[in-house]
């Protein structure tokens, strides 16, 4: 593929990762923090930003590791361990760098970083990237798009939940129950984006 078609493919992947194939609302990845941490807009914002950053970077690192090391050696089955180690090491590294150079940012994001290591969306994005056989440029678009899609979903959810805080909800539905129903409605709304992309 030449550069232009690669770029346009990456753009399509980017937009579809945000809207039509949102990693949370159509692939159910990253549900645990989505349900657990979405009570407040402020915390959701911090977590969302951290996810965008970590997802984009680890997708790239994992792409390189997979294409350069695992693929030539034929060690495809080893990718789970490889990816999870890269993700854990990267998160740890970022945590140390932020703590050293920007204590204020560390205070805002620091608590969320360890949480991210076990966020299934991060590993899921890397696994999808391998299965769909994305090129390097497309991987950039995919990682960034998935991160932004997740950010968008959790921010919307936090906004809705803040408004729901004072509503009367049946006891059994409080907490996770109502969150799942809202997520379902959001997923319905996101299906509406399906027609946006042609030839996808």
């Amino acid at each position, binding site marked *: 593929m030449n550069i232009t078609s690669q770029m346009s493919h990456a753009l399509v992947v980017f937009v579809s990762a945000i809207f039509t194939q949102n990693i949370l609302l159509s692939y159910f990845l990253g549900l*645990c923090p989505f349900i657990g941490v979405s009570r407040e807009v402020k915390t959701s914002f911090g977590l969302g930003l951290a996810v965008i950053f970590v997802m984009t970077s680890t997708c790239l690192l994992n792409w390189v590791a997979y294409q350069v090391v695992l693929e030539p050696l034929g060690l495809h089955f080893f990718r789970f361990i490889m990816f999870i180690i890269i993700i854990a090491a990267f998160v740890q590294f970022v945590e140390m760098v932020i703590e050293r150079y920007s204590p204020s940012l560390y205070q805002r994001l620091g608590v969320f970083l360890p949480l991210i290591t076990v966020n299934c969306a991060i*590993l899921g994005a890397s696994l999808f990237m391998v299965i769909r056989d994305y090129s390097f440029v497309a991987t950039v678009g995919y990682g960034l798009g998935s991160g932004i899609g997740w950010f968008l979903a959790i921010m919307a959810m936090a906004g809705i939940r803040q408004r729901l805080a004072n509503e009367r909800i049946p*006891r*059994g539905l409080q907490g996770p129950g109502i969150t799942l129903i809202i997520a*379902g409605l959001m997923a319905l709304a996101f*299906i509406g984006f399906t027609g946006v992309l042609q030839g996808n």
Partner: protein
Amino acid sequence: MRPIGAENRKLIAEGLWQNNPVFKQVLGICSTLAVTNLVLNTVVMCVALIFTRSLSAFTVAVLRTLTPRNIRMMVETLIIAFYVIIVDILLKAYWPEMSSSLGPYVGLIITNCIIMGRCEACANANPSGRALLDGLFNALGYSFVLLIVAGLRELFGMGTFLGLTVPYFSGPYWDKWIIMVMPPGAFFVLAIVVWVFRSIQTAKENKAK
């Protein structure tokens, strides 16, 4: 065989009902909820989960005295990944169609929070037999709820069960709810299942008081 002690019975009841991973803790649904549009896929996924869940709890418990505390998360993750790789390779070798239809979700068992959560909460501090039991029954409690979700979704969405036709639902009288097999359906059905089970639980607790 020795009868099940009261302590173990409590462990079983907690895993299956009182502290059920899905409707009580709401953990780890990500990797399995996605495949609940077909009962067969869910069964395979649940078997894989029960296998990795109980054996990783067992291994973590066996190694608990040997593992340095500051790297235990990493060790746990690697143990879980080890079992997941076994499942992945077996599926690829003997049932490639299933492997490709499950896609990345088998691998995502690694980051399933319930496995990590139980390793941290129970397997770390208990002897191996107890950890195995805890792991097994937590996984079973998890599986039965998701099988209910999958059964409802397939029945309403496609009018079938395990791919077999069901009277009435497969016939012309039943207008298939396509939304059920699409992602929003999973959220709605799970929410309703959580609602029903939690209501039963609170009703029981109130009675007990």
